[in-house]
């Protein structure tokens, strides 16, 4: 199973022009700011907004191609969508929400409900079958929405900002749950998000969309290591490491990163550049991470008026500091510095 698309949609002065390919079992994240055309792209794939030009093929079968006049209606597409805000039907309980698609595909009511009950159990909500959407928490509603979208066994699953509706506290936890829930689906998956962390943690590949155009595609590692433009650097220019956790200590190469809480096994570590503080001398204080290195490069960020400082050492890290800090510390290439990060600023995800 694979999805292959060349999406051309014009909306007034805005035009979307994006080519993408997703393989079976692969998760592609479409990352970009608001207004980049992410939702339009997703609606085109779902059949809710027809293409103006280009094509969409699923498993080699054309489902939208204006040049040949092919347009398969959304209800006939076998594309599951988890919408932003989840859009669970308020007049149906969780079980009947999940059974909705099966009923529309002609499955008898009792069979549909039995299947829906199994799906709810798979997302850990078997006790919430009779609950109305209004009474579900954000994370629970998201899992019901995923179960509903997967019930009809679509060949492509689209997720539109699945974490945007959640508050900060529950986001990290829900992101972890989302990973494990999605692992059971073996079709192609496309995640639309404006949050680089979602893309880095959940996706196999990332496509960066800016003003309707693709500016870069690649794996999370490729994109964070080699952002091809200032824009991408600003968007996903985070420090991303893979390491092995032992309680709160995570070994990354020759360095050790100390997180705020315990973790185990292979993990992904994300340190936002603006959380990195640079010092000329070894900083004092117990719970902080501090690594020694030399400045390998300085780069001005036009938009934010800040400076990205690359520090090479046991742990190569990028810091984002003010021009005043650069002057005060006298930073130039080759300067020896200490990079310090609070444990609470470090995000850790199972790999």
């Amino acid at each position: 199973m694979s999805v292959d698309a060349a999406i051309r949609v014009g909306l007034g002065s805005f035009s979307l022009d994006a080519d993408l390919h997703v393989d079976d079992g692969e998760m592609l994240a479409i990352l970009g700011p608001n207004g980049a055309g992410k939702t339009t792209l997703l609606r085109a794939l779902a059949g809710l907004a027809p293409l103006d030009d280009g094509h969409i093929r699923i498993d080699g079968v054309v489902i939208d191609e204006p040049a040949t006049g092919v347009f398969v209606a959304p209800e006939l597409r076998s594309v599951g969508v988890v919408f932003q805000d989840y859009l669970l039907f308020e007049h149906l309980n969780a079980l009947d929400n999940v059974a909705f698609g099966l009923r529309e595909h002609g499955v008898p009511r009792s069979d549909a409900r039995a299947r829906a009950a199994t799906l709810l159990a798979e997302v850990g909500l078997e006790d919430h079958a009779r609950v109305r959407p209004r009474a579900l928490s954000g994370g629970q509603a998201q899992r019901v929405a995923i179960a509903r979208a997967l019930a009809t066994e679509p060949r492509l699953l689209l997720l539109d900002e699945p974490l945007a509706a959640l508050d900060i506290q529950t986001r990290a936890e829900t992101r972890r749950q989302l990973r494990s829930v999605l692992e059971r689906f073996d079709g192609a998956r496309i995640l639309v998000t404006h949050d680089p962390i979602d893309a880095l943690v959940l996706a196999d590949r990332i496509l960066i969309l800016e003003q309707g155009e693709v500016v870069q595609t690649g794996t999370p590692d490729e994109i964070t290591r080699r952002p091809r433009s200032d824009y991408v650097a600003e968007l996903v220019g985070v420090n991303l490491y893979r390491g092995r956790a032992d309680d709160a200590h995570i070994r990354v190469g020759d360095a050790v990163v100390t997180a705020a809480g315990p973790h185990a096994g292979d993990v992904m570590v994300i340190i936002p550049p603006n959380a990195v503080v640079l010092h000329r001398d070894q900083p004092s204080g117990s719970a902080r991470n501090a690594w020694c290195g030399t400045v390998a490069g300085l780069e001005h960020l036009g938009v934010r008026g800040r400076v990205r400082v690359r520090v090479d050492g046991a742990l190569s890290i990028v810091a984002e500091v003010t021009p005043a800090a650069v002057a005060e510390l006298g930073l130039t290439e080759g300067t020896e510095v200490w990079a310090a990060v609070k444990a609470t600023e470090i995000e850790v995800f199972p790999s």
Partner: protein
Amino acid sequence: MRRDRVSTERPPAVVVIGAVLAITIFAIPLAGLLLRAPWSSAWSVLSTPEALTALRLSVVTSLAATAIAITLGVPLAWVQARVPYRGRGFVRALILLPMVLPPVVGGIALLLALGKKGIVGQYLDHVGVHLPFHVGGAILAETFVAMPFLVLTVEAALRSTDRRYEDAARTLGASRLRVFRRVTLPMIRPSLIAGAALCWARALGEFGATITFAGNAPGKTQTLPLFVYVNLEAGNTDAAIILSLVLLAISLVVLVSLRERWLTAL
């Protein structure tokens, strides 16, 4: 703090006087009806065959008019809310017209169009469809006057629904008609009920268009409001008052039962 002070501040005296007078205009006629009601003769009035016939006819014709209004009015509301076609504003004015038109004018218009010699009626007459002085005429007159209440209520509800729910249903395999049936209709249910109840209450009280177009034939087109009028004209005041109270009671029941729904639907 400031907000509290504002909300406890007394309204200007002139406004209060105006409001009280307005309430009086609503309340005085009701009080008159209730105070002058010959309660002792209520049963004898209500149990006369003529009154029962008129009551039954009213119930049957108003329910039929409501059924037609739902069957045709909901599609019309959907088209008005969702299809951006040329002339939509004109059609909207057409829908509003029966609400502002004096019902008797509506009745005359219906008569000229659908009466025995009317532009359409003459052909209907040939194929055996007789509307004036027949039950069908009473139902049509009531539908003409009452349907706008349903169409406008449902149209407003359709405009305010979040259409992304309908998108979600389509990606789950529902055709457009199925989406309407399984998602849109449940979403607008409170408004549909409110609109249907208002429509029914209006149809039940219809007088002018019915008497003009359908006539005043006992058992065929003489609905309760017409029967009340006939009794009043004949000096049969007691019967007129009692039957008026029946209509008043029905209206009150509709309003009270709708109070919650009105608030949530509009």
